């Protein structure tokens, strides 16, 4: 059992949890994730480790409510316990001094790119961050990102905050202004990572993405998370989750993410109905 010590709502449908997990807190590096299972009947879902405090033995997770499990987790309060948390899993991000790094976060992807932006900054890189949201009320981690970035841009789809448009629009501006960019890290919805990768490809700007494929065990045992990178099948949970965005078959990823659409709808509706009754 893993105890939740703090819980905070960051934005509509996005919650932050500080959880006691000393073993993981000691080991986790930027880019790594955990698999969690809420209770005996729960599903195993992957969530990135956003921050750690090795001294206190805690990890921080930022979770968007998108389906049954994440909605249910959204009801958990400080003091509640999560049955299983396994990690840290996946390969850590490669953090090196390369020069100028553009860190892009789309929606809850901001929470995933945050520890990497921070690590790149600490390595002495010039960090430009672009974080994008659907609307003002979904904006998260703006202050945190600002602290670890030399420049920060916020975009919203509807223009209710920051620049109107997508994160890729801002990136395009930067490229067209002739800014020297050595590396792009883009983390968010698959479609966003695809657009960013397509954008940087003709300029030859190295682009790293973090693939959010469906997972079960997270240790290389099942193959649920398989993705195609450079024409080869890879397991996102052990070979990734980060890959060269220019090599990734995003269309396949997007299709595979929709594999259980029908079941996910059934599960969520059933859950919300039950919750309504309770």
């Amino acid at each position, binding site marked *: 059992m893993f105890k939740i010590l703090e819980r905070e709502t960051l934005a509509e449908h996005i919650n932050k949890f500080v959880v006691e997990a000393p*073993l*993981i807190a000691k*080991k986790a590096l930027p880019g790594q994730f955990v698999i969690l*299972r809420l209770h005996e*009947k*729960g*599903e*195993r879902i992957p969530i990135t480790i956003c921050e750690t405090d090795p001294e206190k033995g805690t990890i921080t997770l930022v979770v968007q409510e998108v389906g*049954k*499990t994440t909605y249910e987790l959204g009801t958990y309060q400080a003091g509640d316990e999560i*049955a*299983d*948390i*396994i*990690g*840290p*899993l996946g390969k850590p991000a490669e953090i090196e001094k390369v020069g100028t790094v553009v860190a892009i976060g789309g929606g809850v992807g901001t929470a995933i790119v945050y520890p990497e932006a921070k690590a790149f900054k600490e390595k002495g890189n010039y960090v430009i961050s672009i974080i994008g949201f659907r609307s003002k009320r979904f904006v998260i981690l703006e202050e945190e990102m600002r602290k670890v970035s030399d420049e920060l841009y916020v975009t919203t789809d509807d223009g209710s905050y920051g620049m109107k448009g997508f994160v890729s629009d801002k990136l395009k501006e930067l490229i067209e202004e002739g800014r020297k960019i050595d590396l792009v890290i883009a983390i968010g919805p698959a479609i966003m990572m695809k657009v960013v990768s397509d954008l940087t490809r003709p300029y030859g700007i190295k682009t790293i993405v973090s693939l959010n494929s469906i997972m*079960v*065990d997270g*240790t*290389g*045992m*099942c*193959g*649920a998370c*398989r*993705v*195609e990178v450079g024409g080869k*099948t890879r397991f996102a949970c*052990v070979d990734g989750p980060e890959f060269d965005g220019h090599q990734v078959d995003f269309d*396949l990823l997007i*299709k*595979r993410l929709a*594999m*259980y659409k029908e*079941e*996910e709808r*059934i*599960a969520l509706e*059933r859950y919300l109905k039950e919750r309504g009754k309770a």
Partner: protein
Amino acid sequence: MKKIPRQPMPKQPPEERIKNFNEVALGYTEELAVKEAERCLQCPRPFCVDGCPVKVKIPEFIKLVKERKFSEAAKKIKEDNVLPAICGRVCPQEEQCEKKCVLGIKGEPVAIGRLERFVADWEAEHGEIEKPEMPEKKGIKVAVVGSGPAGLTCAGDLAKMGYDVTIFEALHKPGGVLIYGIPEFRLPKHIVEREVDYLRLLGVEIKVDVVVGKSITLYELFDMGYKAIFLGLGAGLPKFLGIPGENLLGIYSANEFLTRTNLMKAYLFPEYDTPIKVGKRVAVIGGGNVAMDAVRSALRHGAEEAHIIYRRSRAEMPARLEEIENAEEEGVIFNFLVNPKRFIGDENGWVKGIELVKMELGEPDESGRRRPVPIPGSEFIFEVDTVVIAIGQTANPVLLDVTPEIKRNRWGYIEADYETGKTSMKGVFAGGDIVTGEATVIEAMGFGRRAAKAIDEYLRTGKW
């Protein structure tokens, strides 16, 4: 004397059982067990024992069954086999103990496995599981990584010798393949849980959710005061065919299909949260136990047609005979001498067909089985909506990649001494599928047991 025929085991009727995940074989009654035990000749030179990898004292325990001393029979088996309820169910007896039984030469061998299962179940039911005599604690810590049959056996033996044993398991439930792979209808999970509870009774500590190599390294375990480590990691990396279309939607590895089904209980969705997609026409590729488990699970998930696609013929199938027969009774359709060349998808990326090529059997290969060779121009399309690939597993490198001192062979398995389990890293032993490649429950147990002995010797003498 009138010859008694081998007593059949009562089973759920096929038309019933394909609608549930409950155990298929119901087990002997006391009467049937005694009757079957009476068939044993009590050979002074019992060949059956030679066939058993852990040398269960077969005639002795069967004699006790005949005398209705069931509890003593259980104790007799447990002298050599700590997991009889499991082995009685899943051992390939026709290849092991029963293969060597003299009665098998002319007629049918004694149903040793069924008797073993009966005895273990009887003991569990009658609440006579004795609290084991606790040995004096040595105050020496040993770590066991992996809680499959190899790890469980090794841990149990070491605990009985007085060591402080901790098992580290990556998944959220202990048991290895017994929990995530072999289905409920063949091995009810409460039986595995019972055996795990018994280990706890022996004082073994079980830490789940720990991926050794990721959450903690072997070096750190040594630093924490563990004096020896046993690796029972299993062969957990699924093999794929490496043909076009393999990542289409609706194509599973057997590991994923069975893990969703067994460990995550997808057959109880949406009461349990994990979903599974099983279409009307399911094809399982492979001919081993894993393939049989997957194809029979598919039927229970509601498939209208469940097919086996196997590149050799029935005679070469590595699955246990009993399970092939069960599958046949349940209506599984077997397609022999065909091999997949590619998968074909629909416009949404779902698998809709497999291109198969017909095969014929040529010269025997290194395994002694006749090698299947494709017949040119015989390709055809086989329509499906779900595919499960069950062509085997190899070694999962998660731990070994961060522990380069441990030598691996060219297939990625650990190089360990067969008698002791010693690896190339001091203080680290290994056994089970991670050393032998995919084998059997009882062989993994045997390995765990030999390693426990070697660990004890190493810790007593300090000699490596």
